[in-house]
């Protein structure tokens, strides 16, 4: 029998049992629906992540550290590290690890490299407190360097373009500050912020204490143990938006690079970590690939992350979430497989005489099996088309609402439906259905025509 005729007869058999065909298909449609949503959400998330990184991070940007364990997380660290005088020991109770620092010599090496530009150490500065003009209360916040490789959206004020630093007198604060300070974003712009830093006093030795008591008395001692303070004042030039398209941490106030360096040096001078840095940001020069620069940096004993690495990290998260949804879809599909087997078995029983007749008329067992497999394939196709169709329609209809709920920003749809993956999904479902129809088809093929045609 020709394939086309078998397919046609298979389709006709299904049409003659419409309700049963439809119900069996609906079981697959549930799986198909879930899988389509999962594919669409995965695609949407990936495109979103791409957009996020593309619009926020210079693709040439690199984050360089001395200690690769910064990137590796705790899973790979052994808990024991070799002692190094350049390593600062964090508070074990705070869960901090020993992080090997970049020295000024390292910074110089990096700056001299022909494949890097805009090498900038990251300064993390802890302040004593800050005060905003017109507000009496004192507050504490993180202070960091303005990163010109990442551009944030602003609610008020303005930021320089990518790769340009803010002025030395300026500070950028996140939108969230307004809530605590009780000010609107527009009000904050132009206000002065006074930041007070305090350098910890070095613990004096007994001999030092005795000496200072002898020469300056108790006043001298208290001066020695209270440390030193420094007061700086900046003007708020911009308030950054807490937007979902922004990747930077939104809780720090940001000052110009040169200012940050000054403050950092003040904080660290006299300590053993003076002129040492946890990491630096840099850019691969435009005629170098960031991946190649990364490899070369790693060879030179540094650790490095490219924009792509960050993207991959985001993708990993997306993939895990997608995997979970896919898992549910596959489970639903698994259940529907038994539905197909059941339906097809019943169909074989019901059509015993028809099968017997076809065999008596010379239809080959192989073709009988094919007939039932194609019926299963039709069911798979129908289920896939129904499930994917509903998912597509519903997703397209709900996309604007989802976008609003998740505040993704205009035009960023969570569910992106593409014809090719969906077509592949339907083909896969057809294959699953054919596999499910294998045993019923075999039963039909093995049917003895004499038994099938016995009427008594």
């Amino acid at each position, binding site marked *: 029998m020709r394939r086309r005729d078998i397919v046609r007869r298979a389709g006709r058999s299904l049409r003659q049992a419409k309700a049963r065909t439809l119900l069996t298909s609906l079981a697959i449609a549930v799986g198909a629906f879930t899988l389509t949503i999962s594919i669409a959400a995965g695609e949407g998330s990936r495109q979103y992540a791409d957009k996020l990184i593309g619009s926020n991070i210079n693709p040439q940007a690199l984050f360089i550290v001395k200690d690769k364990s910064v990137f590796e997380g705790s899973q790979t660290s052994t808990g024991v590290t070799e002692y190094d005088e350049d390593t600062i020991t964090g508070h074990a109770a705070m869960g901090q690890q020993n992080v090997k620092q970049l020295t000024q010599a390292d910074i110089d090496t990096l700056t001299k490299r022909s494949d890097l530009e805009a090498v900038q150490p990251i300064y993390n500065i802890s302040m004593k407190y800050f005060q905003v003009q017109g507000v009496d209360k004192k507050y504490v916040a993180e202070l960091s360097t303005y990163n010109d490789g990442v551009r944030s959206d602003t609610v008020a004020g303005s930021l320089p373009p990518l790769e340009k630093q803010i002025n030395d007198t300026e500070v950028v604060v996140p939108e969230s500050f307004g809530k605590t300070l009780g000010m609107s974003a527009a009000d904050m712009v132009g206000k002065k912020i006074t930041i007070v830093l305090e350098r910890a006093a070095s613990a004096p030795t007994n001999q030092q204490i005795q000496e200072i008591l002898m020469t300056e008395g108790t006043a001298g001692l208290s001066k020695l143990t209270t440390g030193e303070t420094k007061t700086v004042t900046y003007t708020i030039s911009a308030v950054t938006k807490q937007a979902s398209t922004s990747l930077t941490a939104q809780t720090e106030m940001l000052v110009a690079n040169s200012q940050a360096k000054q403050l950092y040096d003040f904080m660290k001078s006299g300590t053993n970590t003076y002129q040492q840095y946890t990491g630096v940001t840099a850019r691969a020069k435009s005629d170098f690939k960031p991946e190649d620069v990364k490899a070369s940096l790693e060879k030179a004993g540094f650790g490095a992350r490219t924009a792509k690495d960050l993207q991959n990290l985001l993708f990993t998260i997306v993939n895990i979430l997608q995997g979970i949804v896919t898992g549910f879809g596959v489970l639903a599909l698994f259940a529907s497989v038994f539905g197909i087997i059941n339906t097809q078995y019943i169909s074989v029983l019901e059509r015993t005489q028809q099968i017997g007749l076809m065999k*008596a*008329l010379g239809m080959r067992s192989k073709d009988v099996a094919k007939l039932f497999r194609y019926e299963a394939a039709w069911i798979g196709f129908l289920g896939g088309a129904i499930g994917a169709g509903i998912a597509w329609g519903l997703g397209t209809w709900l996309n604007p609402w989802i976008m609003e709920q998740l505040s993704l920003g205009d035009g960023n749809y969570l569910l992106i439906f593409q014809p090719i993956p969906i077509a592949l999904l339907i083909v896969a479902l057809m294959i699953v259905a054919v596999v499910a129809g294998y045993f019923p088809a075999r039963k039909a093929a093995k049917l003895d025509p004499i038994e099938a045609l016995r009427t008594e």
Partner: protein
Amino acid sequence: MIEVRHVKKTYGKKQNKFVALDDVNFTIPDGASVAILGKSGSGKSTLMHAMSGLDRPEEGEVVIDGENILKLKAKAVDKFRATKMSFIFQSFFVQANETCYDNVSLPLEIARVPKRERRAKVQKALDAVELSDKIKSKARNLSGGQKQRLAIARAIVNEPTILFADEPTGNLDSTTGEVIENLLFDYNKKNGTTLIIVTHDPDLAKKCDMQLFIKDGKIASQVNEQKKPKVTKIPVSSRRAQ
């Protein structure tokens, strides 16, 4: 020519062993009409199944046009049935949900007849049984006699050389039954198709050229009718392309 030689078929094993056919021998000339008579369980249906290759007896030969179909592989036997044989059953076995066209078209599809040739053949077969006006009707809307006529159309559409009829009038009243009988014998005479009817109706059997009485799996007697029918025989080879 169909030659049945020393055919033996048993069912079951050991103490449950039942001999359905026991050393059956006979020869049917081309174009003859043959009645296989016997009571229920006498082995007449088993004999038909053996002759059509649906069943495989343990011993013996069924030689059709010089070929022992019991020695053929399953694929070849299927092809043999698809192209050279046809069946009519007591219970019609027409597909109630399908149109008359699709019912009659089935053997053509099985025999891989190209689509463009099918319509003419189906039309011709339905004309022969006077059902051409029902070509688009669903088979379930036909009466019993019409259903059997449809079954005949399905049986003759691919111009078989051997037509098996298993109690073709068993489910029909005598008037309708006569119409069916006439159709079968006319077709047998006109086209020189060998007609083999399994029946327990002696009146129907009398109309055949040859009667085989089966009892307990053996040929009890063989009667050849006195007047040999004048058959306008067309050689098998020229009549069929396959």
